[in-house]
């Protein structure tokens, strides 16, 4: 296990390095001039332009700027927002909580509802199974912004159970405000996890080792829990990890729709206003979170299946 973790950590670092380079390159190559944002599209005297180019290192060679940026980023300094004249790190920190809460809430829904529905379908062939299969087939195809609109129409406008906008105050208020966004974000992933759970549990129930357990007089619920679901947990954990990682990226859409003050919504605003340092900073944070969550999913899967740590099959 220790060797496996060391290998995964090394892979993680390489992935982060590569993705940081891509983030930096991508934002640099994007069209638009940051000076235009600074000046508010007025023409500036050449001396002022020179000073600004100097301050934001706009004239250094590309690689030099990348290395300087990465070095600062590793130390927690992501530069200064051109639009707001504040440290990007502070701006990100004040919004990261909302996004983290949203994604955690959504992944809790994905695991609980996904495994629940999947198990139900696996154990109740017939009408229940067909309903889950049909329902998840539809839900898998629904992107978060559609899900968001439907949820708002039904639960905020028609039924008025949950607020459709804003962050709310107090723990309970925040949970209430995050409920619809979390379900919108989780819908497609929940359906995917439910389908994988159904297939994996069915498959495990047909395995010989389940027959052994049955032949030993172990009750059916215990067989399902200790053997079928336990073994199905390996693919489920892998998919849940990937889903959570992708929800980090999709959170931007949901945050915009529900007016949540999170990283994703801020990223969209910053990109529109060509606030390069903020875009780079948020991208770096999101990519890091994405890669970390993915790795975590793999490690959980490895912990669940002792055979994965063997050799280099992982």
């Amino acid at each position, binding site marked *: 296990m220790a060797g496996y973790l060391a290998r995964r950590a090394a892979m993680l670092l390489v992935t982060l390095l590569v993705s940081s380079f891509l983030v930096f390159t991508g934002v640099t190559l994007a069209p638009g001039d940051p000076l235009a944002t600074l000046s508010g599209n007025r023409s500036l005297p050449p001396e002022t332009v020179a000073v600004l180019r100097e301050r934001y290192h706009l004239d250094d060679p590309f690689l030099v700027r990348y290395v300087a940026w990465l070095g600062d980023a590793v130390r927690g300094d992501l530069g200064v927002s051109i639009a707001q004249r504040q440290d990007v790190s502070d701006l990100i920190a004040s919004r990261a909580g909302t996004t983290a809460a949203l994604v955690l809430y959504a992944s809790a829904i994905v695991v609980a509802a996904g495994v629940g529905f999947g198990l139900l379908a696996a154990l109740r062939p017939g009408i229940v199974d067909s309903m889950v299969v049909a329902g998840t087939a539809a839900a898998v195809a629904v992107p978060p912004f559609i899900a968001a609109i439907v949820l708002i129409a039904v639960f905020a406008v028609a039924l008025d159970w949950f607020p459709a906008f804003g962050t709310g105050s107090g723990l309970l208020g925040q949970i209430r405000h995050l409920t619809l966004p979390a379900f919108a974000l989780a819908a497609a992933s929940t359906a995917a996890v439910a389908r994988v759970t159904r297939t994996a549990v069915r498959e495990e129930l047909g395995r010989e080792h389940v027959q*052994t357990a049955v032949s030993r007089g172990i009750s059916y619920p215990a067989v399902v829990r200790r053997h079928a679901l*336990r073994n199905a947990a390996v693919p489920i954990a892998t998919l849940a990890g990937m889903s959570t990682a992708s929800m980090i990226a999709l959170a931007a859409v949901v945050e915009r729709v529900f007016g949540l003050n999170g990283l994703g919504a801020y990223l969209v605003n910053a990109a529109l206003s060509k606030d390069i340092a903020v875009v780079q900073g948020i991208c770096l944070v999101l990519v890091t979170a994405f890669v970390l969550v993915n790795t975590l999913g793999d490690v959980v899967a490895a912990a669940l299946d002792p055979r994965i740590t063997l050799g280099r099959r992982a």
Partner: protein
Amino acid sequence: MSPLLEVSGLTVRLPVGHQPKPVLSDVSLTIAAGEALGLVGESGSGKSMTARAVARLLPPGAQVEGDIRYAGTDLRALRGQQLRELRTRVAVVFQDPRAHVNPVRRIGDFLTEALRLTGRVSRREATDRAVRALDEVAVADGRRLLDRYPHQLSGGMLQRVMIAAALLTEPRLLLADEPTTALDVTTQAEVMAIIDGLRRQRGLSLLFITHDLDLAAAVCDRTAVMYAGRIVETRPSALLHGHPLHPYTAALGAARPSVTTRVDRLATIPGRPLSAFEVPDGCAFAARCVYAQDPCRTHRPELASVDEGEVACLRAEDLRETLAVTHG
């Protein structure tokens, strides 16, 4: 005294495609307390299906007719808690330990699971008993094994673990479904010796399924030979090899090469084994039988009592001398 296990007129049909097809026809056998019965036949002859019917492990959709009694109780009527209780008394050892032990749980979990979940035994006591059981199947230092995973053990070791696990709930009847087929030859002998030793020591009844007539003879008091879902001959094991009464038994015995005499060509049984649902009106073996005559193809022989056993062959009496001479 009534036998511990009594199967009579067992017919099993499985859904294949749209129509249920028979895999067992009119199987009857008995095992007394402490007795070992061998069940021999080619692949697909219904040996495993018989054991599955007894252990109530038939696939869903199976249609079962006939009577299966364990210590007088009708096995087919058991439900829920009673069925689980029975399963702690009737243990199964499967052919392929690699597939039949959960790969993601520790050996210790596998061994103690049945005790802890069905016997309400504490974890500590279950662990102690597991170590003792491992000791009985000749695994020294079993405590060290408890934290291992199945993929870290050899096939032979894993089969011993399976046998130890089967014995932990102190069953009275052991159903061993080709327990050594997946193992290499030297391990086979060891595992066989362990099963045989434990059986004698504990007075267990044993249903031993194998395709090896001689192996069955070595460990079983009586042996039943199956062909195409039917039992064709049940006799004391010692008599089957030297004095077979059914031509199929004789052919099975001859198909096993002898170590002491060299032959130019290994004996085989011509044709291919039939499944129960392919059997024509007459004797199922008639198409492959060198002694078959016209009545064999139209009349299905019933199991009839002969000296010390039963045989289902129209020509059993005629062939007694011939089979004993050519195959004895």
